[in-house]
């Protein structure tokens, strides 16, 4: 990389004769040496306070429980060691939420990755018409806040407003229950696929455009058709970008909160422990058990980290990253 040492030599106090036009005062050696520290200080301070300290607080909280002396006594923090963790790890509510999130991962990520890679390959091949329009339309959901997207899809799912239900009813079918039971998870997955496919597609298109044109020209000279070019040459080149998209989607999926929280008033199937994140939220704010909530958050973050680390390493070993 193009790094230069600080302090830079040429600005030393005796570095050549000062130009007469320069209005510079006598340079300060310490001042120059401090430059990089001063420039990273603001970010580092914010980062420490709003990123590192909260992690510390979460760990501290998770080791404490709340105890009340009597019904109206003042709540008091007591050290409980790993008690909260032992409880979280054996809590059926936490388990069911985690399982639901895994189901959500299976429903969303494969579909999303296949769709975004497919769209990227089609739009990059240049064989179809109106490429810019398609690309923009597929990407547009990314510009819609998750909450608004879920609200709107919520209208699609409610029997009273739903164009889907309306169409099915007019064809003589019953009204589908899209907001209850097992179908709910599919309805939530649909919002996520709708929202993130275009974003991942744009990343994959960018990855394709970074490949030198000569690679494609060589393949074409060898008699490679557009379809074979897409599947045999381009697709393998997309693997690293797809693996990264996979990992970031996984991180997001573990934190699933917004969609079920927004659909909660519409559906009795969204329980307080629907996802681990929702569980942590209700433990902290409904049940006033901040220690327990913190333990859930820490376990969830560790699980996320472990998963993404395993997949990153697997990718590195396979030489994909």
């Amino acid at each position, binding site marked *: 990389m193009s790094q230069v040492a600080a302090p830079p030599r040429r600005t030393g106090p005796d570095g050549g004769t000062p130009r007469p036009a320069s209005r510079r005062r006598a340079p300060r050696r310490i001042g120059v040496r401090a430059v*990089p520290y001063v420039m990273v200080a603001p970010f580092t301070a914010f980062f420490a306070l*709003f990123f*590192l300290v909260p992690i510390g607080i979460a760990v501290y909280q998770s080791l404490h429980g709340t105890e009340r002396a009597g019904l109206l006594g003042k709540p008091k923090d007591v050290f409980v060691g790993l008690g909260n963790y032992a409880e979280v790890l054996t809590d059926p509510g936490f388990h069911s939420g985690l399982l639901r999130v895994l189901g959500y991962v299976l429903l969303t990520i494969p579909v999303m990755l296949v769709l975004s890679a497919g769209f990227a390959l089609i739009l990059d091949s240049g064989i179809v018409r109106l490429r810019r329009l398609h690309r923009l339309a597929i990407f547009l959901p990314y510009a819609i806040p998750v909450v608004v997207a879920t609200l709107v899809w919520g209208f699609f799912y409610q029997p009273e*407003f739903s164009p889907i239900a309306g169409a099915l009813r007019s064809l003589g079918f019953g009204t589908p229950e899209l907001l209850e039971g097992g179908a709910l998870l599919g309805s939530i997955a649909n919002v996520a696929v709708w929202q993130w496919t275009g974003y991942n597609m744009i*990343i994959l298109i960018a990855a394709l455009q970074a490949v030198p044109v000569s690679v494609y020209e060589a393949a074409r000279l060898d008699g490679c058709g557009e379809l074979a070019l897409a599947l045999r040459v381009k697709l393998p080149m997309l693997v690293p970008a797809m693996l990264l998209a996979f990992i970031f989607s996984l991180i997001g999926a573990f934190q699933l909160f917004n969609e079920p929280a927004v659909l909660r008033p519409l559906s009795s199937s969204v329980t307080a422990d629907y996802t681990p994140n929702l569980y942590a939220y209700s433990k902290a704010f409904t049940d006033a058990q901040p220690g327990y909530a913190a333990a859930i958050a820490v376990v969830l973050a560790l699980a996320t*980290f472990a998963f993404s680390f395993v997949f990153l390493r697997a990718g590195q070993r396979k030489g994909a990253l």
Partner: protein
Amino acid sequence: MKRLGLPLTQLVLLLSTVYFLLPLAWVLVNATKGSDDLFSAIGFAFGERFALFDNLAELGTYQHGLFWRWMLNTVFYAGAGATVATLLAALAGYTMAKYRFRGSGTLSVLILGAVLVPTTALALPLYFLMVDLGLDNNPLAVILPSCVSPIGVYLARIYAGSSVPNEVMDAARVDGVGEYSIFFSISARLMAPALVTIFLFQFVAIWNNFFLPLVMLNERALYPITLGLVDWNSTPPSSGNVIYHLVVTGALVSVIPLVAAFLLLQRHWRSGLAAGSITA
């Protein structure tokens, strides 16, 4: 097969585009319906009365114009947070690319690790911190954490490394320009495209944020638009106060600024995503 392949691809693409635009089309159509038509004319059918302007007027006055208050809050939170985040990220990324200093390695490892930490995981502990600082239910509780963008530092560092030549910095030093002036008057300008991208992405991230303000704020007048619309949508119909038409019209109005920004600034977000994918 060859003759069928292309029209088929075209058709699949067309159907997909319809799917991705469908919810937006639904919002557009249904924002024109009054409360009554919303229930009687289902889906994409237009209602008997074109009520878009009535809805907009009601949106502006309902609960003393709370909707526009929420929009202003959102613009303020996102604007302030993204501005500070961009400045901090630019300074830090540039310094890490162009200077050698103690702790640089540790800092870059921490920042890279932080990219993998989802912001929702931090929201609860941040809330406890803000309570300790006495800042809960205060706009600062939403703005301050939004000023940290690890991915922004990462982007700024890569861009500074490739677009700010050392020769230019050295030439400025020979001319007696101080290190800070070099950054603000030369390097920051060379980094402008990356800075726009960082700003844009952070702005969108704050605009879209729901969990953090949900945790931090309990006074409705402080809500950003996401929280506000959910609040309206959660009003039970049994309360005799059906405001779904306002929710739909509000959703439409609330997405216009971001959609417009994305359409106008296509070049910037595309180059930003490209930078992120190639170098990550």
